[in-house]
């Protein structure tokens, strides 16, 4: 398999790894967004909390999540390796370098954008993922009357309850879950955090417009008939829709809740 090794350690191969991990992260973002849209549902967070449980307990998704963590680490690590490598390719810089005349700012500063995103991911995971996994979020019980479909919500204490439950009792559907929704609502009362989230989404927009396009280039896909589709997706889906939708979440909680 030395041919594979050789291929993957070449400059082209390193970029291939960047492209594949990057595209995987892009695909994850779509799933993540669809799930997170549950936050906008006005059901005291039930749909969202159900979703959170599903995502953390369904085995195939758990497997994918490890791939996801690996992707983030590999993507960042290779970015670092490539940056160092590329710096070495020009040990003496220019006194005058008019990069703005021939390229976009974001294309030249993917490292900075990526670092912002990495910090964001760390913050994001500390806020939600870590707390969710370490029992630091409150619990909640939903009781829905199956006849009237009215829901009663009760906060639970950790001692009363250890994991997700869903059962029917006396004509009522009872769901007990970790209330990640509340944690979200709580976290997004912090204006600094909200500002950081919005800023990070802006960085993500620029990172993804360039990154999504470039990934196809690195994979060797640049066909004049089909590349407009890639450009379109990069701009509209990854550059506009996804970042705006994500940015809307903290703003929604900050201003509307």
């Amino acid at each position, binding site marked *: 398999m030395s*041919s*594979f090794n*050789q*291929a993957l350690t*070449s*400059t*082209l*191969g*390193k*970029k*291939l790894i960047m492209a594949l991990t990057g595209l995987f992260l892009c695909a994850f973002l779509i799933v993540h967004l669809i799930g997170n849209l549950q936050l906008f549902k006005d059901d005291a967070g039930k749909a969202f909390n159900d979703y959170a449980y599903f995502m953390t307990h369904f085995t195939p998704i758990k497997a994918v999540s490890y791939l996801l963590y690996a992707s983030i680490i590999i993507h960042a690590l290779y970015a670092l390796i*490539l940056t160092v*490598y*590329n710096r*070495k*390719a*020009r*040990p*003496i*810089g*220019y*006194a*005058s*370098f*008019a*990069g703005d*005349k*021939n*390229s*976009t700012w974001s*294309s*030249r500063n*993917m490292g900075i954008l990526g670092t912002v995103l990495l910090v964001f991911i760390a913050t994001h995971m500390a806020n939600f993922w870590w707390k969710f996994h370490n029992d630091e979020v409150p619990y909640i019980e939903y009781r829905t009357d199956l006849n009237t479909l009215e829901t009663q919500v009760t906060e639970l204490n950790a001692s009363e309850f250890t994991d997700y439950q869903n059962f029917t009792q006396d004509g009522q559907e009872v769901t007990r879950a970790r209330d990640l929704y509340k944690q979200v609502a709580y976290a997004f009362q912090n204006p600094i955090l909200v500002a950081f989230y919005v800023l990070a989404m802006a960085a993500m927009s620029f990172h993804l417009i*360039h990154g999504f*396009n*470039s990934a*196809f*280039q*690195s*994979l*060797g*896909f*640049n066909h*004049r008939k089909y590349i407009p589709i890639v450009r379109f997706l990069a701009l509209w889906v990854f550059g506009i829709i996804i970042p705006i939708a994500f940015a809307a979440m903290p703003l929604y909680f900050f201003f509307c809740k």
Partner: protein
Amino acid sequence: MSEERTMNLTLKVWRQKNENEKGKFVTIQANGISSDMSFLEMLDVVNEDLTRKGEDPIYFDHDCREGICGMCSLHINGRPHGPKQGTTTCQLHMRSFHDGQTIVIEPWRAAAFPVIKDLAVDRTAFERIQQAGGYVSVNTGGVPDGNAIPIPKPSADEAFESATCIGCGACVAACKNASAMLFVSAKISQYALLPQGQAERYQRAQAMVEQMDREGFGACTVTKACEAECPVGIKLTNIARMNREYFNAKFFKEKTAHS
């Protein structure tokens, strides 16, 4: 034709005695420069003045002065071949500048292109990449008639577009990573697009890419600066094609590169 203007300019020129000594910027006044001069003619005038004063003239590479040999270089005010797109330095005219302007002139900067004197760099890394596989192995004589293999015009035209690369190195100079991929991919593409190049297609891609890496050029981060600064308009699609050829060769073909 815009009226001829005369201008006085301040040049900040990189001076370096040879590969081993340290260089520095030297400020030189260039007075009475006509807007009709080419950039290199302006330097000629400066050099004549320096020579008359007994000072060493500025060394810069140049030869055909019609934009085709690829010998001229120069990083002018932060851009390879100066502020005009689609031109080589020899085809850049002083009408692109204005009276009183300061012009910073630097050599191409890349580890693989060491400065040999003042503004001239050693670009033999490009030679070695081409020697690694930039050819079709046919001996003189004993070839089929030129019309024996019809080549569809679109393929011929596209191969030609890639083949117009003048090998000046502006792509390396413009790239923030000093990557040579536009150059290498143009060479690989020319042959990949033509039936004549098929027999050695995959060996070629591997050999040339590997030589490129050995020379210490950076990786591509798709800033597209190379495409924007290329004096003959080599397209970024070539790099995608190179990637394709290389991965195809490495992952799906049995033959490895001839060493």
